[in-house]
Protein backbone atom coordinates (compact mmCIF):
# COMPACT_ATOMS: atom_id res chain seq x y z
CA UNK A 1 0.00 0.00 0.00
CA UNK A 2 3.02 2.27 0.40
CA UNK A 3 2.86 2.95 -3.36
CA UNK A 4 -0.46 4.73 -2.85
CA UNK A 5 0.89 7.21 -0.30
CA UNK A 6 2.27 9.53 -3.03
CA UNK A 7 -1.18 9.47 -4.69
CA UNK A 8 -2.71 10.77 -1.48
CA UNK A 9 -0.05 13.45 -1.25
CA UNK A 10 -0.66 14.33 -4.89
CA UNK A 11 -4.39 14.78 -4.23
CA UNK A 12 -3.57 17.14 -1.37
CA UNK A 13 -1.10 19.05 -3.55
CA UNK A 14 -3.65 19.39 -6.37
CA UNK A 15 -6.28 20.67 -3.94
CA UNK A 16 -3.71 23.12 -2.59
CA UNK A 17 -2.91 24.30 -6.13
CA UNK A 18 -6.57 25.07 -6.83
CA UNK A 19 -7.10 26.64 -3.42
CA UNK A 20 -4.05 28.90 -3.75
CA UNK A 21 -5.27 30.10 -7.13
CA UNK A 22 -8.74 30.84 -5.80
CA UNK A 23 -7.47 32.54 -2.65
CA UNK A 24 -5.03 34.66 -4.64
CA UNK A 25 -7.85 35.68 -6.94
CA UNK A 26 -10.13 36.33 -3.95
CA UNK A 27 -7.56 38.80 -2.57
CA UNK A 28 -7.04 40.82 -5.72
CA UNK A 29 -10.38 40.69 -7.53
CA UNK A 30 -13.18 43.23 -7.16
CA UNK A 31 -16.60 42.25 -5.83
CA UNK A 32 -19.42 44.59 -6.78
CA UNK A 33 -22.89 43.16 -6.32
CA UNK A 34 -25.53 43.90 -8.92
CA UNK A 35 -28.82 41.97 -9.15
CA UNK A 36 -28.83 42.07 -12.94
CA UNK A 37 -25.24 40.85 -13.17
CA UNK A 38 -26.03 37.97 -10.82
CA UNK A 39 -29.04 36.75 -12.80
CA UNK A 40 -28.63 33.62 -14.96
CA UNK A 41 -27.31 34.20 -18.45
CA UNK A 42 -30.09 34.19 -21.00
CA UNK A 43 -28.70 36.00 -24.06
CA UNK A 44 -29.72 39.39 -22.69
CA UNK A 45 -33.42 38.81 -22.13
CA UNK A 46 -35.11 38.35 -18.77
CA UNK A 47 -34.96 34.85 -17.33
CA UNK A 48 -37.93 32.73 -18.28
CA UNK A 49 -38.96 29.44 -16.64
CA UNK A 50 -37.01 27.19 -14.35
CA UNK A 51 -34.14 25.64 -16.31
CA UNK A 52 -34.51 22.32 -14.49
CA UNK A 53 -37.23 20.89 -16.65
CA UNK A 54 -37.67 17.48 -18.20
CA UNK A 55 -35.01 16.49 -20.69
CA UNK A 56 -34.60 13.74 -23.22
CA UNK A 57 -34.78 10.13 -22.02
CA UNK A 58 -31.82 9.34 -24.28
CA UNK A 59 -29.42 10.61 -21.64
CA UNK A 60 -30.78 7.99 -19.28
CA UNK A 61 -30.42 5.24 -21.89
CA UNK A 62 -26.85 6.28 -22.53
CA UNK A 63 -26.13 6.09 -18.82
CA UNK A 64 -27.54 2.55 -18.61
CA UNK A 65 -25.60 1.41 -21.68
CA UNK A 66 -22.47 2.98 -20.22
CA UNK A 67 -22.80 1.00 -17.02
CA UNK A 68 -23.24 -2.26 -18.95
CA UNK A 69 -20.24 -1.74 -21.19
CA UNK A 70 -17.96 -0.13 -18.64
CA UNK A 71 -18.38 -3.04 -16.25
CA UNK A 72 -17.44 -5.25 -19.17
CA UNK A 73 -14.29 -3.19 -19.73
CA UNK A 74 -13.36 -3.63 -16.11
CA UNK A 75 -13.72 -7.41 -16.55
CA UNK A 76 -11.48 -7.29 -19.61
CA UNK A 77 -8.59 -5.50 -17.90
CA UNK A 78 -7.38 -8.31 -15.60
CA UNK A 79 -7.97 -10.81 -18.38
CA UNK A 80 -5.85 -8.76 -20.81
CA UNK A 81 -2.98 -8.46 -18.32
CA UNK A 82 -2.93 -12.24 -17.81
CA UNK A 83 -3.65 -13.13 -21.44
CA UNK A 84 -0.17 -14.42 -22.30
CA UNK A 85 -0.37 -16.77 -19.32
CA UNK A 86 -3.91 -18.00 -20.00
CA UNK A 87 -3.42 -18.78 -23.69
CA UNK A 88 -6.15 -20.77 -25.46
CA UNK A 89 -8.22 -21.11 -22.31
CA UNK A 90 -8.42 -17.34 -21.93
CA UNK A 91 -9.18 -16.82 -25.59
CA UNK A 92 -12.15 -19.23 -25.59
CA UNK A 93 -13.48 -17.96 -22.28
CA UNK A 94 -13.38 -14.36 -23.43
CA UNK A 95 -14.88 -15.22 -26.83
CA UNK A 96 -17.92 -16.61 -25.03
CA UNK A 97 -18.09 -13.55 -22.80
CA UNK A 98 -17.81 -11.11 -25.69
CA UNK A 99 -20.27 -13.13 -27.78
CA UNK A 100 -22.93 -12.81 -25.07
CA UNK A 101 -22.20 -9.10 -24.92
CA UNK A 102 -22.40 -8.68 -28.67
CA UNK A 103 -25.84 -10.33 -28.62
CA UNK A 104 -26.96 -7.82 -25.99
CA UNK A 105 -25.39 -5.02 -28.01
CA UNK A 106 -27.19 -6.07 -31.19
CA UNK A 107 -30.45 -6.27 -29.24
CA UNK A 108 -29.94 -2.73 -27.94
CA UNK A 109 -29.13 -1.56 -31.46
CA UNK A 110 -32.21 -3.27 -32.92
CA UNK A 111 -34.42 -1.75 -30.23
CA UNK A 112 -33.11 1.67 -31.24
CA UNK A 113 -31.30 2.50 -28.01
CA UNK A 114 -28.30 3.73 -30.00
CA UNK A 115 -30.31 6.06 -32.21
CA UNK A 116 -30.24 9.63 -30.99
CA UNK A 117 -33.15 11.07 -32.95
Amino acid at each position, binding site marked *: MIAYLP*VLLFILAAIA*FGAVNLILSWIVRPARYDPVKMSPYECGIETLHDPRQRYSVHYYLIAVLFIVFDVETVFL*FPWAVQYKVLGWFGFVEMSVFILILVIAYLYAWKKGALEWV
Partner: protein
Amino acid sequence: METQMFITILISVVQISIVLSLVALSVPLLILMERKVIGFMQSRIGPKRVGPSGMLQTIADGLKLLLKEDIIPDRADKWVFRLAPMIVLVPAFVAFAVVPFSGTGLNVFGQRITPWVTDLNIGILFIIAISSVGVFGIILGGWASNSKYPLLGALRSAAQMVSYEVPLGLALVGGLMWAGTASMVGIVEAQREAHLWFFIPQVVGTVIYFMAGVAETNRAPFDLAEAETELVSGFHTEYSGMRFGLYFIAEYANMLIVAAVATTMFFGGWLRPFPNVSWLAFLDIFNFILPGQWGPFMSGLMWVIIKVSCFIFLYYWIRATFPRYRYDQLMSIGWKWLLPLALANIMGTGALLLWLGQTG
Protein backbone atom coordinates in the same frame (compact mmCIF):
# COMPACT_ATOMS: atom_id res chain seq x y z
CA MET B 1 12.73 3.25 10.30
CA GLU B 2 11.02 6.55 10.95
CA THR B 3 13.74 8.56 9.27
CA GLN B 4 13.47 6.27 6.22
CA MET B 5 9.72 6.91 6.13
CA PHE B 6 10.34 10.62 6.44
CA ILE B 7 12.85 10.57 3.58
CA THR B 8 10.42 8.62 1.37
CA ILE B 9 7.69 11.18 1.99
CA LEU B 10 10.15 14.02 1.40
CA ILE B 11 11.17 12.54 -1.97
CA SER B 12 7.51 12.15 -2.91
CA VAL B 13 6.83 15.75 -2.03
CA VAL B 14 9.76 16.90 -4.19
CA GLN B 15 8.59 14.74 -7.12
CA ILE B 16 5.01 15.94 -6.77
CA SER B 17 6.07 19.59 -6.70
CA ILE B 18 8.16 19.11 -9.84
CA VAL B 19 5.42 17.25 -11.73
CA LEU B 20 2.71 19.66 -10.62
CA SER B 21 4.67 22.74 -11.62
CA LEU B 22 5.69 21.09 -14.90
CA VAL B 23 2.03 20.47 -15.76
CA ALA B 24 0.82 23.85 -14.51
CA LEU B 25 3.55 25.68 -16.43
CA SER B 26 2.99 23.74 -19.62
CA VAL B 27 -0.65 24.85 -19.76
CA PRO B 28 0.13 28.48 -20.80
CA LEU B 29 2.64 27.07 -23.27
CA LEU B 30 0.02 24.73 -24.74
CA ILE B 31 -2.50 27.54 -25.11
CA LEU B 32 0.09 29.73 -26.84
CA MET B 33 1.06 26.81 -29.08
CA GLU B 34 -2.60 26.19 -29.92
CA ARG B 35 -3.21 29.79 -30.93
CA LYS B 36 0.01 29.97 -32.91
CA VAL B 37 -0.48 26.63 -34.69
CA ILE B 38 -4.10 27.33 -35.59
CA GLY B 39 -3.12 30.85 -36.59
CA PHE B 40 -0.50 29.62 -39.04
CA MET B 41 -2.85 26.94 -40.37
CA GLN B 42 -5.35 29.68 -41.16
CA SER B 43 -2.71 31.99 -42.69
CA ARG B 44 -2.65 34.37 -39.75
CA ILE B 45 0.11 35.09 -37.26
CA GLY B 46 -1.75 34.45 -34.02
CA PRO B 47 -0.94 36.39 -30.85
CA LYS B 48 1.92 38.84 -31.37
CA ARG B 49 1.43 41.92 -29.18
CA VAL B 50 2.38 40.82 -25.66
CA GLY B 51 6.06 40.03 -25.33
CA PRO B 52 8.34 38.96 -28.19
CA SER B 53 6.07 37.50 -30.91
CA GLY B 54 3.25 37.05 -28.39
CA MET B 55 5.17 34.76 -26.04
CA LEU B 56 3.63 36.31 -22.93
CA GLN B 57 0.07 36.40 -24.24
CA THR B 58 -1.24 33.53 -22.09
CA ILE B 59 0.52 34.87 -19.00
CA ALA B 60 -1.36 38.12 -19.54
CA ASP B 61 -4.60 36.20 -20.07
CA GLY B 62 -4.01 34.27 -16.87
CA LEU B 63 -3.39 37.46 -14.93
CA LYS B 64 -6.57 38.91 -16.38
CA LEU B 65 -8.56 35.88 -15.20
CA LEU B 66 -7.03 36.24 -11.76
CA LEU B 67 -8.16 39.87 -11.55
CA LYS B 68 -11.69 39.27 -12.82
CA GLU B 69 -14.69 39.40 -10.55
CA ASP B 70 -16.03 36.01 -9.53
CA ILE B 71 -19.71 35.98 -10.44
CA ILE B 72 -21.89 33.42 -8.67
CA PRO B 73 -25.46 33.71 -9.96
CA ASP B 74 -28.12 34.37 -7.33
CA ARG B 75 -30.07 31.29 -8.30
CA ALA B 76 -27.08 28.97 -8.29
CA ASP B 77 -26.38 26.26 -5.74
CA LYS B 78 -23.61 28.28 -4.15
CA TRP B 79 -21.52 25.51 -2.60
CA VAL B 80 -21.80 23.02 -5.42
CA PHE B 81 -21.01 25.84 -7.82
CA ARG B 82 -17.83 26.62 -5.88
CA LEU B 83 -16.83 22.98 -5.51
CA ALA B 84 -17.32 21.85 -9.13
CA PRO B 85 -14.14 23.34 -10.71
CA MET B 86 -12.04 21.64 -8.05
CA ILE B 87 -13.65 18.27 -8.80
CA VAL B 88 -12.56 18.68 -12.41
CA LEU B 89 -9.09 20.03 -11.62
CA VAL B 90 -7.91 17.57 -8.97
CA PRO B 91 -8.36 14.30 -10.97
CA ALA B 92 -6.83 15.94 -14.05
CA PHE B 93 -3.66 16.59 -12.03
CA VAL B 94 -3.62 13.44 -9.93
CA ALA B 95 -3.58 11.22 -13.02
CA PHE B 96 0.00 12.42 -13.61
CA ALA B 97 1.07 10.52 -10.48
CA VAL B 98 1.75 7.36 -12.50
CA VAL B 99 3.08 8.85 -15.74
CA PRO B 100 6.74 7.95 -16.30
CA PHE B 101 8.63 10.98 -17.59
CA SER B 102 11.92 9.19 -18.22
CA GLY B 103 13.49 5.77 -17.95
CA THR B 104 16.26 6.10 -15.42
CA GLY B 105 16.14 7.89 -12.13
CA LEU B 106 18.63 10.21 -10.49
CA ASN B 107 20.76 9.66 -7.43
CA VAL B 108 20.69 12.74 -5.27
CA PHE B 109 22.35 12.68 -1.81
CA GLY B 110 22.44 8.89 -1.96
CA GLN B 111 18.68 8.68 -2.50
CA ARG B 112 17.23 7.32 -5.72
CA ILE B 113 14.67 9.68 -7.22
CA THR B 114 12.50 7.99 -9.84
CA PRO B 115 11.22 10.02 -12.81
CA TRP B 116 7.67 8.98 -11.90
CA VAL B 117 5.87 9.85 -8.69
CA THR B 118 4.71 6.31 -8.06
CA ASP B 119 4.63 3.11 -10.07
CA LEU B 120 1.29 1.46 -9.34
CA ASN B 121 0.80 -2.05 -10.70
CA ILE B 122 -2.64 -0.94 -11.92
CA GLY B 123 -1.30 2.25 -13.55
CA ILE B 124 -3.53 2.34 -16.62
CA LEU B 125 -6.63 1.42 -14.63
CA PHE B 126 -5.75 4.14 -12.12
CA ILE B 127 -5.58 6.77 -14.86
CA ILE B 128 -8.89 5.68 -16.40
CA ALA B 129 -10.56 5.56 -13.00
CA ILE B 130 -9.27 8.91 -11.79
CA SER B 131 -9.94 10.78 -15.01
CA SER B 132 -13.53 9.60 -15.13
CA VAL B 133 -14.14 11.43 -11.85
CA GLY B 134 -13.88 14.67 -13.83
CA VAL B 135 -17.30 14.13 -15.38
CA PHE B 136 -18.87 14.70 -11.96
CA GLY B 137 -17.37 18.15 -11.80
CA ILE B 138 -18.76 19.00 -15.22
CA ILE B 139 -22.28 17.81 -14.56
CA LEU B 140 -22.35 19.33 -11.05
CA GLY B 141 -21.08 22.64 -12.41
CA GLY B 142 -23.76 22.70 -15.09
CA TRP B 143 -26.49 21.67 -12.70
CA ALA B 144 -25.48 24.07 -9.93
CA SER B 145 -25.49 27.03 -12.33
CA ASN B 146 -29.28 26.73 -12.52
CA SER B 147 -29.31 28.23 -15.97
CA LYS B 148 -30.37 26.75 -19.29
CA TYR B 149 -27.21 26.72 -21.36
CA PRO B 150 -24.93 25.28 -18.69
CA LEU B 151 -27.44 22.55 -17.90
CA LEU B 152 -27.81 21.50 -21.53
CA GLY B 153 -24.06 21.70 -22.04
CA ALA B 154 -23.37 19.62 -18.95
CA LEU B 155 -25.86 16.93 -20.00
CA ARG B 156 -24.33 16.74 -23.44
CA SER B 157 -20.83 16.70 -22.02
CA ALA B 158 -21.61 13.98 -19.53
CA ALA B 159 -23.35 11.77 -22.11
CA GLN B 160 -20.46 12.28 -24.51
CA MET B 161 -17.79 11.53 -21.93
CA VAL B 162 -19.41 8.36 -20.66
CA SER B 163 -20.10 7.18 -24.21
CA TYR B 164 -16.49 7.56 -25.27
CA GLU B 165 -15.08 6.15 -22.08
CA VAL B 166 -16.12 2.68 -23.24
CA PRO B 167 -14.12 2.63 -26.53
CA LEU B 168 -11.27 4.41 -24.73
CA GLY B 169 -10.97 1.63 -22.18
CA LEU B 170 -11.47 -1.13 -24.76
CA ALA B 171 -8.81 0.34 -27.06
CA LEU B 172 -6.25 0.10 -24.25
CA VAL B 173 -7.09 -3.56 -23.60
CA GLY B 174 -5.34 -4.60 -26.84
CA GLY B 175 -2.13 -2.89 -25.74
CA LEU B 176 -2.40 -4.46 -22.29
CA MET B 177 -2.59 -7.91 -23.89
CA TRP B 178 0.75 -7.25 -25.59
CA ALA B 179 2.30 -5.75 -22.48
CA GLY B 180 1.08 -8.32 -19.94
CA THR B 181 1.12 -5.68 -17.22
CA ALA B 182 -0.91 -2.60 -16.36
CA SER B 183 1.97 -0.70 -14.74
CA MET B 184 2.95 2.32 -16.83
CA VAL B 185 6.65 1.61 -16.34
CA GLY B 186 6.12 -2.08 -17.03
CA ILE B 187 4.38 -1.32 -20.32
CA VAL B 188 7.37 0.63 -21.62
CA GLU B 189 9.75 -2.09 -20.40
CA ALA B 190 7.61 -4.66 -22.23
CA GLN B 191 8.02 -2.63 -25.41
CA ARG B 192 11.77 -2.57 -24.93
CA GLU B 193 11.80 -6.34 -24.49
CA ALA B 194 9.51 -6.92 -27.47
CA HIS B 195 11.71 -4.62 -29.62
CA LEU B 196 8.47 -3.12 -30.77
CA TRP B 197 6.36 -0.06 -30.11
CA PHE B 198 2.87 -1.39 -29.51
CA PHE B 199 1.63 1.14 -32.04
CA ILE B 200 2.69 -1.28 -34.79
CA PRO B 201 0.50 -4.27 -33.85
CA GLN B 202 -2.15 -1.97 -32.40
CA VAL B 203 -2.76 0.58 -35.17
CA VAL B 204 -6.52 0.16 -34.83
CA GLY B 205 -6.31 0.44 -31.06
CA THR B 206 -4.21 3.61 -31.29
CA VAL B 207 -6.63 5.29 -33.69
CA ILE B 208 -9.66 4.34 -31.58
CA TYR B 209 -7.85 5.47 -28.43
CA PHE B 210 -6.96 8.83 -29.84
CA MET B 211 -10.42 9.50 -31.30
CA ALA B 212 -12.02 8.56 -28.00
CA GLY B 213 -9.42 10.68 -26.21
CA VAL B 214 -10.31 13.74 -28.29
CA ALA B 215 -13.97 13.17 -27.45
CA GLU B 216 -13.20 12.55 -23.77
CA THR B 217 -11.47 15.90 -23.43
CA ASN B 218 -14.33 17.67 -25.26
CA ARG B 219 -12.03 18.98 -27.96
CA ALA B 220 -12.84 19.83 -31.57
CA PRO B 221 -14.33 18.23 -33.66
CA PHE B 222 -16.17 16.63 -30.74
CA ASP B 223 -16.59 19.84 -28.72
CA LEU B 224 -20.37 19.63 -28.83
CA ALA B 225 -20.53 20.58 -25.17
CA GLU B 226 -19.14 23.99 -26.02
CA ALA B 227 -20.86 24.43 -29.35
CA GLU B 228 -20.90 28.20 -29.05
CA THR B 229 -23.44 28.67 -31.82
CA GLU B 230 -25.98 26.69 -29.82
CA LEU B 231 -24.94 26.68 -26.20
CA VAL B 232 -22.91 29.89 -25.60
CA SER B 233 -20.05 27.92 -24.03
CA GLY B 234 -21.60 24.85 -22.46
CA PHE B 235 -21.28 23.85 -18.86
CA HIS B 236 -19.04 26.76 -17.82
CA THR B 237 -21.22 29.56 -19.23
CA GLU B 238 -21.91 30.95 -15.76
CA TYR B 239 -18.34 30.67 -14.57
CA SER B 240 -16.00 33.61 -14.57
CA GLY B 241 -12.63 34.63 -13.19
CA MET B 242 -10.32 32.06 -11.71
CA ARG B 243 -13.03 29.40 -11.38
CA PHE B 244 -13.31 29.40 -15.14
CA GLY B 245 -9.52 29.37 -15.20
CA LEU B 246 -9.48 26.15 -13.20
CA TYR B 247 -11.80 24.49 -15.73
CA PHE B 248 -9.49 25.69 -18.47
CA ILE B 249 -6.33 24.37 -16.81
CA ALA B 250 -8.08 21.04 -16.21
CA GLU B 251 -9.02 20.75 -19.88
CA TYR B 252 -5.42 21.15 -20.99
CA ALA B 253 -4.15 18.86 -18.24
CA ASN B 254 -6.58 16.22 -19.49
CA MET B 255 -5.26 16.63 -23.02
CA LEU B 256 -1.76 16.09 -21.68
CA ILE B 257 -2.91 12.94 -19.89
CA VAL B 258 -4.45 11.49 -23.05
CA ALA B 259 -1.23 12.27 -24.92
CA ALA B 260 0.95 10.83 -22.14
CA VAL B 261 -1.03 7.58 -22.00
CA ALA B 262 -0.86 7.23 -25.79
CA THR B 263 2.89 7.85 -25.62
CA THR B 264 3.42 5.27 -22.91
CA MET B 265 1.05 2.63 -24.20
CA PHE B 266 1.61 2.77 -27.93
CA PHE B 267 4.73 4.82 -28.65
CA GLY B 268 7.31 3.43 -26.29
CA GLY B 269 7.35 6.14 -23.63
CA TRP B 270 10.92 7.20 -23.00
CA LEU B 271 12.42 4.80 -25.58
CA ARG B 272 14.00 6.15 -28.74
CA PRO B 273 12.75 4.85 -32.11
CA PHE B 274 14.03 1.30 -32.71
CA PRO B 275 15.58 0.85 -29.25
CA ASN B 276 17.24 -2.40 -30.35
CA VAL B 277 19.09 -0.97 -33.39
CA SER B 278 22.44 0.01 -31.94
CA TRP B 279 23.64 2.38 -34.66
CA LEU B 280 20.67 4.62 -33.89
CA ALA B 281 22.04 5.18 -30.37
CA PHE B 282 23.19 8.66 -31.43
CA LEU B 283 19.53 9.72 -31.28
CA ASP B 284 19.79 9.69 -27.48
CA ILE B 285 21.68 12.90 -27.88
CA PHE B 286 21.93 13.85 -24.21
CA ASN B 287 23.91 10.69 -23.47
CA PHE B 288 26.89 12.34 -25.15
CA ILE B 289 26.40 15.88 -23.89
CA LEU B 290 25.63 15.43 -20.22
CA PRO B 291 27.78 13.47 -17.76
CA GLY B 292 26.83 10.33 -15.84
CA GLN B 293 23.27 9.81 -14.72
CA TRP B 294 21.96 13.02 -16.27
CA GLY B 295 22.48 11.73 -19.84
CA PRO B 296 19.97 8.83 -19.90
CA PHE B 297 17.57 10.82 -17.73
CA MET B 298 17.47 13.80 -20.07
CA SER B 299 17.34 11.61 -23.19
CA GLY B 300 14.27 9.81 -21.83
CA LEU B 301 12.65 13.08 -20.84
CA MET B 302 13.37 14.47 -24.30
CA TRP B 303 11.63 11.55 -26.02
CA VAL B 304 8.58 11.77 -23.75
CA ILE B 305 8.30 15.51 -24.40
CA ILE B 306 8.73 15.06 -28.16
CA LYS B 307 6.09 12.34 -28.37
CA VAL B 308 3.60 14.16 -26.16
CA SER B 309 4.11 17.34 -28.19
CA CYS B 310 3.37 15.44 -31.40
CA PHE B 311 0.05 14.29 -29.95
CA ILE B 312 -0.79 17.78 -28.76
CA PHE B 313 0.04 19.10 -32.24
CA LEU B 314 -2.28 16.44 -33.67
CA TYR B 315 -5.05 17.77 -31.43
CA TYR B 316 -4.60 21.28 -32.88
CA TRP B 317 -4.24 19.99 -36.41
CA ILE B 318 -7.54 18.09 -36.08
CA ARG B 319 -9.17 21.16 -34.59
CA ALA B 320 -8.04 23.35 -37.48
CA THR B 321 -9.07 20.79 -40.11
CA PHE B 322 -12.42 19.25 -39.24
CA PRO B 323 -15.80 20.90 -38.78
CA ARG B 324 -17.81 20.09 -35.69
CA TYR B 325 -19.95 16.95 -35.73
CA ARG B 326 -23.68 16.91 -35.11
CA TYR B 327 -24.69 15.38 -31.79
CA ASP B 328 -26.39 12.31 -33.24
CA GLN B 329 -23.36 11.74 -35.49
CA LEU B 330 -21.12 11.93 -32.43
CA MET B 331 -23.18 9.32 -30.63
CA SER B 332 -23.33 6.98 -33.61
CA ILE B 333 -19.55 7.20 -34.14
CA GLY B 334 -18.99 6.25 -30.54
CA TRP B 335 -21.55 3.48 -30.16
CA LYS B 336 -21.89 2.07 -33.66
CA TRP B 337 -18.35 2.31 -34.99
CA LEU B 338 -15.72 2.65 -32.30
CA LEU B 339 -17.25 0.17 -29.85
CA PRO B 340 -17.62 -2.83 -32.23
CA LEU B 341 -14.27 -1.98 -33.79
CA ALA B 342 -12.61 -1.99 -30.38
CA LEU B 343 -14.18 -5.36 -29.53
CA ALA B 344 -13.02 -6.77 -32.86
CA ASN B 345 -9.56 -5.37 -32.17
CA ILE B 346 -9.42 -7.23 -28.86
CA MET B 347 -10.41 -10.56 -30.43
CA GLY B 348 -8.01 -9.95 -33.32
CA THR B 349 -5.17 -9.21 -30.92
CA GLY B 350 -5.99 -12.37 -28.98
CA ALA B 351 -5.91 -14.47 -32.15
CA LEU B 352 -2.69 -12.82 -33.34
CA LEU B 353 -0.92 -13.46 -30.04
CA LEU B 354 -1.99 -17.12 -30.16
CA TRP B 355 -0.81 -17.40 -33.78
CA LEU B 356 2.56 -15.86 -32.96
CA GLY B 357 2.93 -18.31 -30.11
CA GLN B 358 3.43 -15.51 -27.58
CA THR B 359 1.19 -17.19 -25.02
CA GLY B 360 2.28 -19.64 -22.38
